[in-house]
C-alpha cells in the first residue's frame, strides 16, 4: 500500500487553513444522522467525544475505567505548551513548531507539527473558558514556566496537576453531553476488537468488565484514543491498566503500526526501592526548572549529600550542556543519568539514582516559593521515600514514560483502515523520535478538540444517509466469536504461573534489550526470548475465577498477550532502524561524545508495519519525511 499522508499543498502556514477549506463538511442538520464511536476517555478521547457531540454527531464513548475521569492523562503533572508568547520572550508558532521538530530529532512530519503549534493557543483559551484553574500572576493573568528543550517560557500549568485539571475540564464537557443525551457513555467496558467490512471500520466489539458480556457496537467511524504502550516494560510511569490492546487489535485488523521503537524514558522518576515494586512514579520535568542535578565527584563518597561541598560535586548536565543545562530534552537527560549510574557513580541505597537538588532555589527564593511551585510533588516524594526533599536532595532515576510510536495516521488522523482514526498518544504523528515535555497534553487536546472534529467530516461525507451496519451482520458475529473464543482459550489454559509473572519477565527482556540503549545482538536475543516466553504464557498461564463477572486477572491476561506481540515488533523495528534518533539509541550509532547519531540519508522516514498473521512477521512500509522549513542538524544543546 502507498502511504499517502495527505499533506496539504502551499506554504506551511496555510496548510491547515487550506486543508479545512478543501475537505468536505457535513452540514449541521446532517450531523445527527451519523454515529461515531470514541474509545478511551483521556484527554484526546474525552475532548473528541465532547466536541463531536457538540457539533451534533451521535457519539458512543467507551472507557474501561469506572468513570470517564480516571484515564492516565490525569497523572500528567508539569504543564501544557502553547505559543501565546505572553511572557514576551520571543516565542511564536514557528518557534514552537521548530523546537518540537528538533526535539523529536527530525523524525516527525513537519505539516502535522506546524498544525499542532497553530492550535496550541486555542487549547489554552478553551481550557480557560472551561474553568481549568491554571496558575496566575497577581494581576490575574496566566503564568508560564519553562520546560526541557525550549529556551522560552511557554508552559501553562496548574500546580503539579495540569493533566488532572485539563482532563477534568474535558470530562466535564463530556458529562454535559452525556446529560444532553448526545453521548452514550459506556464505563467498565473494554474494546477487544475493531470490526471491518469491505476494508473499512464499521464498529467495535466490547466486553462488559462487570458481567463479561461480549457486545457489538456499530458506527460510521471509529476513533481510538487509547493511549500508549510503556507498560510493555512492566515497570513504567504509566498507570497499571494502560495497555496496547485496542491499538493492537486495530493493527491486526489492518492498521499499520508506526515507529514502535520510539519510546521515551523520563529522567525524573523516583528510583525503585525493591524488586516488588509495581510501578515507577514520575516527578514532573518542571522540577528541572529549579532543581540542579548532580552526583559526587568521587563515586566512593559516602557522605550525606548536604555534607558534600560544592567543589566536590559534578553538576554533569550543566557541565556538558552549558546552554540548556538542567533543561536538556528528556532523552539527553536520561541517557546522561543512565551513564553515570552504569559507571557506578549513582547515589542512594541501591546506587540507582542521581541527586536533584533544590537547596539553591530554596536559599534564593525561599521554601514557600518552592512549595507554591512544586508542593504536591515534594509531598509525594516524601510519602513514597520517607525523605524530606526540602532538606535533602531528591534522588531520581530514568523510567519508561511515553511512547512516540503508535498507529500510523495521515494528516486527517485516519489510520490505514478507512473510517478508523487514532488520536493522542495512540497515534505516532507529532513527536518524532522524542517528545518534549508539556507536549503530550497539547497533542492530545489538539487532536481531540481541534483536529478530528473537522477532519472526520471528509470521510463521513461519503456515507450520508447510509445506515450503520446492523450488529447482527456476519462481520460483527465473526468478531464477537473471535473475542469469545479468545476469552475461552485464556480461561482454559489453567497453567501454573501468574499473569504478573509473565509480564514482569517480558519487562525485564524489554528494558534490557529495547530500553535506553539497544544493540543488534541484544535485539536479536530478545527476538528469540519473547516468542519463547509468549509460548510459555499460552501454555502455562493461570487465570482463576470465571469469565462471566469481574475478573481482573483475565482482563490483564489479554493485555499482556498483546504486549508480547508488540514487544517483538518493537525489537524488529529497533533492529531495522540502523541509526540513533531521540529515544531510540543504537549503541552502534553514536557520536564521539556519546550523543545520538542519526543517518538522515537512509532513515529519514517513518516505518509503518503491516500485520499479516501470527506466523508471519509484519512487512515494513516507509513514509519519507521531507523537511522544507526546519534545517536538519545534529541536535545540540550545548
Amino acid at each position: 500500500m502507498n502511504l499517502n499522508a495527505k499533506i496539504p499543498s502551499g506554504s506551511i502556514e496555510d496548510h491547515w487553513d487550506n486543508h479545512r477549506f478543501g475537505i468536505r463538511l457535513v452540514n449541521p442538520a446532517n450531523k445527527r444522522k451519523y454515529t461515531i464511536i470514541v474509545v478511551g476517555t483521556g484527554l484526546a478521547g474525552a475532548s473528541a467525544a465532547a466536541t463531536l457531540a457538540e457539533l451534533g454527531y451521535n457519539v458512543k464513548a467507551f472507557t474501561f475505567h469506572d468513570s470517564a475521569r480516571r484515564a492516565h492523562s490525569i497523572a500528567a503533572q508539569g504543564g501544557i505548551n502553547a505559543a501565546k508568547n505572553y511572557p514576551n520572550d520571543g516565542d511564536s508558532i514557528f518557534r514552537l513548531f521548530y523546537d518540537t521538530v528538533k526535539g523529536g530529532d527530525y523524525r516527525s512530519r513537519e505539516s502535522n507539527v506546524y498544525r499542532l503549534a497553530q492550535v496550541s493557543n486555542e487549547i489554552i483559551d478553551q481550557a480557560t473558558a472551561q474553568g481549568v484553574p491554571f496558575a496566575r500572576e497577581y494581576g490575574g493573568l496566566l503564568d508560564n514556566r519553562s520546560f526541557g528543550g525550549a529556551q522560552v517560557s511557554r508552559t501553562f500549568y496548574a500546580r503539579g496537576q495540569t493533566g488532572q485539571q485539563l482532563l477534568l475540564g474535558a470530562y466535564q464537557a463530556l458529562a454535559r453531553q452525556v446529560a444532553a443525551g448526545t453521548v452514550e457513555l459506556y464505563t467498565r467496558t473494554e474494546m477487544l476488537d475493531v470490526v471491518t467490512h469491505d476494508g473499512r471500520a464499521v464498529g467495535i466489539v466490547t466486553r462488559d468488565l462487570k458481567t463479561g458480556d461480549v457486545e457489538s457496537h456499530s458506527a460510521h467511524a471509529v476513533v481510538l484514543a487509547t493511549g500508549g504502550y510503556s507498560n510493555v516494560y512492566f515497570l513504567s510511569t504509566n498507570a497499571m491498566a494502560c495497555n496496547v490492546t485496542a491499538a493492537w487489535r486495530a493493527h491486526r485488523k489492518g492498521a499499520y503500526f508506526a515507529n514502535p521503537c520510539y519510546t521515551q524514558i523520563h529522567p525524573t522518576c523516583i528510583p525503585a526501592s525493591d524488586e516488588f515494586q509495581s510501578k515507577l512514579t514520575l516527578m514532573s520535568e518542571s522540577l528541572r526548572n529549579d532543581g540542579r542535578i548532580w552526583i559526587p565527584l568521587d563515586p566512593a563518597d559516602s557522605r550525606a549529600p548536604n555534607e558534600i561541598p560544592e567543589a566536590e560535586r559534578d553538576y554533569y548536565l550543566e557541565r556538558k550542556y552549558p546552554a540548556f543545562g538542567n533543561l536538556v530534552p528528556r532523552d539527553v537527560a536520561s541517557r546522561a543519568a543512565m551513564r553515570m549510574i552504569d559507571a557506578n557513580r549513582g547515589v542512594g541505597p541501591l546506587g540507582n539514582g542521581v541527586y536533584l537538588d533544590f537547596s539553591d532555589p530554596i536559599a534564593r527564593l525561599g521554601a514557600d516559593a518552592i512549595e507554591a511551585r512544586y508542593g504536591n510533588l515534594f509531598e509525594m516524594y516524601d510519602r513514597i521515600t520517607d525523605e524530606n526533599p526540602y532538606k535533602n536532595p531528591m534522588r531520581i532515576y530514568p523510567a519508561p514514560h511515553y511512547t512516540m510510536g503508535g498507529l500510523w495516521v495521515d494528516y486527517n488522523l485516519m489510520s490505514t483502515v478507512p473510517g478508523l482514526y487514532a488520536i493522542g498518544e495512540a497515534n505516532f504523528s507529532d513527536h518524532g523520535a522524542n517528545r518534549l515535555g508539556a507536549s503530550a497534553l497539547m497533542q492530545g487536546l489538539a487532536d481531540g478538540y481541534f483536529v478530528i472534529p473537522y477532519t472526520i467530516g471528509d470521510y463521513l461525507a461519503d456515507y450520508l444517509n447510509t445506515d450503520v451496519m446492523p450488529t447482527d451482520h456476519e462481520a460483527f458475529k465473526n468478531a464477537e466469536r473471535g473475542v469469545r473464543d479468545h476469552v475461552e482459550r485464556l480461561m482454559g489454559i489453567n497453567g501454573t504461573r501468574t499473569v504478573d509473572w509473565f509480564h514482569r519477565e517480558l519487562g525485564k527482556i524489554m528494558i534490557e534489550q529495547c530500553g535506553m540503549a539497544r544493540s543488534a545482538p541484544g535485539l536479536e536475543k530478545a527476538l528469540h526470548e519473547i516468542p519463547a516466553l509468549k509460548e510459555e504464557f499460552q501454555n502455562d498461564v493461570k487465570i482463576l475465577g470465571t469469565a462471566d463477572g469481574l475478573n481482573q486477572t483475565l482482563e490483564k491476561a489479554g493485555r499482556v498477550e498483546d504486549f508480547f506481540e508488540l514487544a517483538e515488533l518493537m525489537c524488529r523495528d529497533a533492529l531495522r532502524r540502523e541509526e540513533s534518533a531521540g529515544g531510540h539509541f543504537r549503541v552502534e550509532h553514536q557520536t564521539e561524545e556519546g550523543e545520538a547519531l542519526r543517518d538522515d540519508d537512509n532513515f529519514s522516514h517513518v516505518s509503518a508495519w503491516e500485520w499479516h498473521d501470527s506466523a508471519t512477521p509484519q512487512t515494513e512500509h516507509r513514509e519519507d519525511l521531507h523537511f522544507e522549513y526546519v534545517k536538519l542538524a545534529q541536535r545540540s544543546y550545548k
Partner: protein
Amino acid sequence: MDVTLRVWRQAGPERPGHFKDYLARGISEEASFLEMLDAVNEKLQESGEDPIAFDHDCREGICGSCGLMINGQAHGPQLGTATCQLHMRKFQDGDQIVIEPWRASAFPVIKDLVVDRTAFDRIIEAGGYITAPTGSAPDANLIPVPKPAADAAFDAAACIGCGACVAACPNSAAQLFTAAKLVHLNLLPQGQPESNQRAVAMVETMEEFFGSCTNHGECESACPKGISIDNIALMNRDYMRAKVADLRLTGRR
C-alpha cells in the same frame, strides 16, 4: 514484616459477603499498601484461590480509582494520603489490618473491595461544568482571575473523586465531593453565568443518591487531597442564594 489481613470477600453484587483472614508474610516496609495486596494476590493465585479484587490504577494518588476502608479509616491511617500512596512502614510487624470496601448504599459492591461510584458522575452531569463549547472561547487573558480566587478554586478542584468522603461519613453524604466541584466553578468568573442553576442542579441530584450532611467533619479528615469543609458552607450559601433568586423571579411574574 508479617501482617494479618481481614478482608471483605464478596463474589458479586447480589452475593453475600464475609470477612476472610489472610497472612501476608515477608512484606517489605518500602512496599505500598497496594503492592502488599499484589503480593498477597500472587500467593492466593498460586494456591488456587481467586485473588482479591480492588480498584486501582495510577498508584500516584491522583486518578481516584483506589479506595479502601483500612481499620475503619477511609484510605487508612495517614492523613491526606490515598490508599495507593500509603506505605507499609506506617504499620507494625504483627499488625492485624481490616480491609473493607467503601460502605454506602449509593456505592453498591461489585466484587470484593470494588464498588460502583457512578452516582458521582450523575452529580457532575447535572451541572458540574461550565458551558463552553469548543471553539467559542475568547483569548485566555481576556478573563483575568484574581490570584486568590484562582488559588481557592484550585484547592477545591484538587478533588480526585475517590469517594472517601462518602465512606467516612456516618450519613453517607456526598457534600464534600459536590461542594468541591461546585465551589471550584462558582468561584471563577467563567462560572458565574450558570452559578445558580449549577448549585440547584448539583445539590438536588446529590440528594437523590446520598444522605444528608450533619456537620460531622469526618469527610474532611478522610480526604486524601485535604479538601476543606469550608467548601460545604460555600455550597450551602450558593444553594440558598440560588433558591432565593428563584423566588424573586417567581414573585416578579
